[in-house]
């Protein structure tokens, strides 16, 4: 049987009002993403790529159009429903890591589980496992300030994966890292996603990073101009 798309958006328009001027961030975007695909949304700043990501993650409502994620219509949900939706379906990797500075790596990773009512012992067990996968077993007790940027982002990845979501969103995950570390982190992200069969939606303006993805979506002035499929990724 044909697989159902995990993300299916139709004619999404987003208009911001800046002062008395309407700015169109998205001018009618259609996009279908299958489960397990690693997608990269690439475009210049102001192209609307972050807006698109926020909308897919239910952080921002669309002005019009349909957003169907995992068979659920996001545009019909209230904010609390969106939070529940994110709890169940979505993991986040941030550009600036956004780790809690006063928590250790382990506590940071375990943190999202506490919002889901997971008991403490189980939280720590799952967090340890996630950190082990990211190769951070030796840094569990370290606070973010005691770790390098790459390590911090790997904690961020572990935190996004610990809740076992269907889709991981990453907004410029390497934006704050140097190029060597960027490659290392991108490998870490892509390998884990593939290993776990997760769908990844990543936003970047760096064409080098786009090379890691199965599908590269080019965005310009609020419209998709091109979608490339990477042959290498298909084999891998």
């Amino acid at each position, binding site marked *: 049987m044909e697989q159902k798309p995990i993300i299916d958006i139709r004619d999404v328009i987003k208009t911001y009002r800046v002062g008395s001027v309407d700015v169109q961030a998205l001018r009618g975007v259609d996009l279908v993403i299958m489960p397990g695909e690693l997608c990269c949304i690439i475009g210049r700043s102001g192209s609307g790529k*972050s807006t698109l990501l*926020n909308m897919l993650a239910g952080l921002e409502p669309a002005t019009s159009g349909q957003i169907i994620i995992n068979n659920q219509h996001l545009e019909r949900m209230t904010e609390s429903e969106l939070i529940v939706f994110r709890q169940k379906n979505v993991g986040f990797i941030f550009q600036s890591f956004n780790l809690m500075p006063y928590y250790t790596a382990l506590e940071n990773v375990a943190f999202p589980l506490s*919002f889901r009512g997971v008991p403490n012992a189980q939280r720590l067990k799952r967090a340890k496992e996630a950190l082990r996968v990211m190769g951070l077993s030796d840094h569990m007790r370290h606070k973010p300030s005691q770790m390098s940027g790459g390590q911090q982002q790997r904690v961020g990845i572990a935190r996004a994966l610990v809740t076992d979501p269907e889709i991981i969103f990453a907004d410029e995950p390497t934006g704050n890292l140097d190029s060597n570390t960027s490659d290392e982190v991108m490998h870490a992200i892509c390998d884990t996603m593939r290993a776990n069969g997760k769908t990844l939606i990543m936003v970047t303006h760096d064409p080098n990073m786009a090379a890691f993805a199965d599908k590269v979506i080019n965005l310009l002035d609020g419209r998709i101009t091109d979608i490339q499929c990477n042959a290498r990724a298909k084999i891998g």
Partner: protein
Amino acid sequence: MKAGDLLRIALLNLWRRKLRAFLTVLGMVIGTSSIVVMVSLGIGIRQATVESYASYGSLTNISVNSWRWVDNGDGSGTSTEKKLNKKSVEAFKKIPGVKVVMPVITTWGMLKSGKYVSDASIMGIDAALAEEFGIELGEGRYPGYKRGSSNYEIALSQDTLNWFRDPKTGKEARDKDGNPKVTLGSRFQLTFDYNSIYNNQPARVNEGFPTDDEPPQGQLYRVSAVGMTEPNTGDFSWYCLMDIDALKKLAAENKAFVSLDTDNYQSVIVKCENTDVVAQVKAAIDEMGFGTNSLQDMLEQAEKQLQQIQLLLGAIGGVSLLVAAIGIMNTMMMSIYERTREIGIIKVLGCRMHNIAGLFLCEAAYIGLFGGALGILVSYGLSLVINLFIGSSGFKSVIPPYLVLGALAFSVMVALFSGLYPALRAMRLSPLTAIRSE
């Protein structure tokens, strides 16, 4: 999110901002302790007032008399009389809330011991009920009476005992060291004939055979002193006590000297089960057409005035609590501005809306709880200092347990209330701010 996690994280959030949390708690400490101390003064003053009223007599007693003042509403009024008798006593007993009823008759007579004489106000009581009505004995027992006998017993009052003096010279019955010559162990005789005992009229020739134009001479009754009332306690401590039947019999035999209506009672004392029902029992008796009064009435008047003092004191304390509450609100608002990003992140990470509000409310509640608890400790200290150094019988600070619990609950409530708006603000913060790159 589990409640335990919520409480733990909220506490951690406060701990991260120790100094500010401490200062806010300090504000709350001052607020709580000022309100507790002020209220405790109010309670203390009230207690002192109640105690001073209670020392005049029992607060559960209503004294009923046969005269009722009916106010016409224009300052004038009329008195109506309704006889108090055995039937009315039975009627009072049936009123709900009434514990016991004791009829009272009072009269006065003269006690003679040797050559010394003293005046005595005598109250007829029922020995079985006397203690119940706060008629206290300093020593001995209550006087009893066997119906029909001529063996009379009396409990003397201190005043009567001290008053013994020689009617001819007016000299007090004391030896040269000032010790009283008449004591409880002395022999006593009771009479109601004022004139003959004080020799105000020429001695009569035909003793024992009174003629029509001459008033009869009152009989002297031997009475044995069986006890003494406790001085300065309640309404009755200046009365000598006799059994009510004995006194009635004596009064009946001495109609020439004592105008005592032996069929009716002068007054009846009604004791209520507790102070709460006094007002309604009193109203029921009023309804029957009798005159009533109780210490409770006067106390209520006094309490109305005290209430105003208490309100004033509470308001003074309330102002500092208000300042503390604003402090909490300010702290929480500051905290939200600082933590905008963090709130956004935890929202993106899947923290529910009500959990975010819950976190902030918890933090506020902690401030209220700690501030309240410390404030109560401080209040105890202040209360101690007040009572030690500036307290007096009418001015003291009393912190009852309910005030402690009330203050704690109140400070938590105030804190929660102050935290409400910040919590709602936090809840409504957009998660976008968190992932927007700097």
